[in-house]
């Protein structure tokens, strides 16, 4: 069964063999960009009020936290790892923030660094366990997922609404640009995170180590790259990004709730994959992740505009897109199937 399919796959990929590897890795990214453009133009033709810059900005306002989380996930996936704890970490951050600010009256200026520290430290701890004891990242972050979600419930099983004036003030601030367009403060933070991540990945030694580690871990080790500290650092980055994403979600929702961000780890992974990052690591673009987040947001927007479609179509479409892109990745990478 598998050999027939493998040869069929080989036949299918033959046209791409002549394309240079550099271009080949960009094909999913180009597909995503085209997809986004097509979705936007079809949406503009079908729905009134779709064709406006504010719709695009709203995508960022509604998905800024996902963008930050997905950027963190990109770091981990580039090294060939996976972080399943991000959704729970986001929920824990909303919960911690709401709890400390509302029930204990802590100032926001103290809570924000604390939450970021908790995120980064737990990410680093998971990275340390993964590296030191050579346990699969999947299982360690799964435990992290359980732990963070469980801690949410130990804080409170109810939703905590935030009425603190500083927090609501930040949440309701609109930054106006030309033509009456506006964004929220979290959007600015999310875009800043994206720029920082881009610079770090493409213009620093740490970024090169991340790519090298994902390309081939034993080669990276033999080259004398700091494999252990890089691995711990990417999980710390992912933890930090999910804590920050949690803070942004707190501003967006103005509440802390243990059920916030259910399944966000999947959205983050989906955005990364749709953005052209290989799940096996070593190849990908953080700007592609931003495109991936926009595609996910666009699906949601189209489903909203359509009105007759139920929200669960969003999940089905995301699943279908994930399928297409993973198969595309498989065909592009041109490697022999692992099953053989």
């Amino acid at each position, binding site marked *: 069964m*598998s050999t027939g399919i493998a040869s069929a796959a080989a036949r299918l990929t033959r046209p791409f063999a002549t394309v240079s590897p550099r271009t080949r890795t960009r094909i999913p990214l180009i597909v995503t960009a085209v997809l986004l453009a097509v979705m936007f133009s079809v949406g503009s033709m079908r729905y009134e009020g779709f064709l406006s810059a504010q719709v695009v900005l709203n995508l960022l306002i509604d998905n800024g936290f996902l963008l930050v989380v997905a950027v963190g996930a990109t770091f981990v996936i580039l090294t060939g790892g996976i972080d399943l704890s991000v959704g729970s970490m986001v929920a824990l951050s909303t919960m911690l923030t709401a709890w400390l600010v509302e029930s204990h009256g802590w100032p926001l200026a103290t809570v924000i660094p604390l939450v970021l520290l908790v995120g980064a430290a737990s990410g680093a701890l998971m990275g340390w366990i993964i590296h030191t004891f050579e346990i699969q990242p999947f299982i360690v972050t799964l435990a992290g997922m359980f732990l963070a979600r*469980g801690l949410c419930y130990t804080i409170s099983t109810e939703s905590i609404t935030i009425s603190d004036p500083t927090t609501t003030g930040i949440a309701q601030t609109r930054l106006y640009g030309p033509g009456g367009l506006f964004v929220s403060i979290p959007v600015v933070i999310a875009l800043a995170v994206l720029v920082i991540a881009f610079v770090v990945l493409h213009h620093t030694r740490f970024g090169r180590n991340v790519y090298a580690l994902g390309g081939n871990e034993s080669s990276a080790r033999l080259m004398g790259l700091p494999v252990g500290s890089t691995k711990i650092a990417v999980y710390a980055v992912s933890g930090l990004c999910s804590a920050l994403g949690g803070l942004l979600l707190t501003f967006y929702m103005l509440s802390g709730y243990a059920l916030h961000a259910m399944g966000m780890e999947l959205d983050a992974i989906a955005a990364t994959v749709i953005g052209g990052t290989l799940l096996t690591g070593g190849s990908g673009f953080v700007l592609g992740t931003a495109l991936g987040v926009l595609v996910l947001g666009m699906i949601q927007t189209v489903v909203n505009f359509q009105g007759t479609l139920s929200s*669960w179509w969003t999940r089905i479409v995301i699943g279908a897109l994930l399928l297409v892109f*993973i198969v595309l990745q498989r065909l592009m990478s041109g490697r022999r199937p692992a099953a*053989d």
Partner: protein
Amino acid sequence: MTTQPATSEAAGGTARRLAGHRLLWPALILLALLLGNLVFQHDFFSVRVRDGHLYGSLIDILQFGAPLILVALGMTLVIATRGIDLSVGSTVAIAGALACAHISTAADPGSVTTMLTAVALALGVALVLGLANGFLVSGLGVQPIVATLILMVAGRGVAQLITDGQIITVTSAPYKMIGGGYWLTFPFAVLLAAALVALTAFLTRRSALGMLIESVGGNPAASRLVGIRAGGLLALVYVFSALCAAVAGLMISSNVSSADGNNAGLWIELDAILAVVVGGTALTGGRFSLGGTVLGALIIQTLSTTVYTLGVPPETTLVFKAFVVIVVCLVQSPVFRAKVLRRRRTTPPRSHTAAAPAQQQEVRA
């Protein structure tokens, strides 16, 4: 496992074999959990017969644990091939939703034929879903975690689509039998789970199938070279896992006489993986223990029951489970074991040093 080197010379052969048995630790943990419950609930072990049915906390654990045992059973074979199946939770939801949707729209919901058609429908769709996973993993060579992630994401949407976002309630006596009925005084679900476990054990241990699966998990390339059709076997285990999940989905929806696309089987994949790992099957594949998995599933179910009995909010079981995962994985980790053993070996006399390199090599391999 850590006690083995220390006692090996002093203890007799039987004790050594018992101490080294891989089911010892899961069995001891289960026993300790059960005894712990006795402290908080004095009639914990009492099993009564009422109206010809068995009642009691132990029976409850078995009955509510039956779906988890089934899902974990399928997961064991998948993990034995070095894979993982994240889509079982969604399959559970889809199977329950399909069966209930069929029964609720049927002309005669109470007839046995309707029930059998619903079951066949659910199993048929599960077969297709399993084949899809199997094709991605063995045909296209996608990593299992990624391949099954797709169905995990989309599956809940599909289940919601089938139930139209509602909770479908059904009243069908034959369907109620699967998850909530009794047969020969025993809960039918427990008998069904036991029969499927026994059948799987028979097929994998009394034929070469189990060995072939372990060989594919141990080294896919080598098993292909010796002529094992790894692709077909891989696809088979994903189909098996999906079918097990579907039966579990039928049980869950039948027990509560309703299908909930959103919550049915939520996070059961994590519990199942946990059960398999606690039962001594390593995530690195190549070896599996069905008995261990059953014990593991019972441990998870007892843990949930215990937390509930203690009056702790049930949601906090997640924290306990997280610690169990970490501890079990650390104990399974060769590196961790090597570090602990090395610390132990600093004190013994010199005669032991000769054996050290050999042991270290074994640990590396």
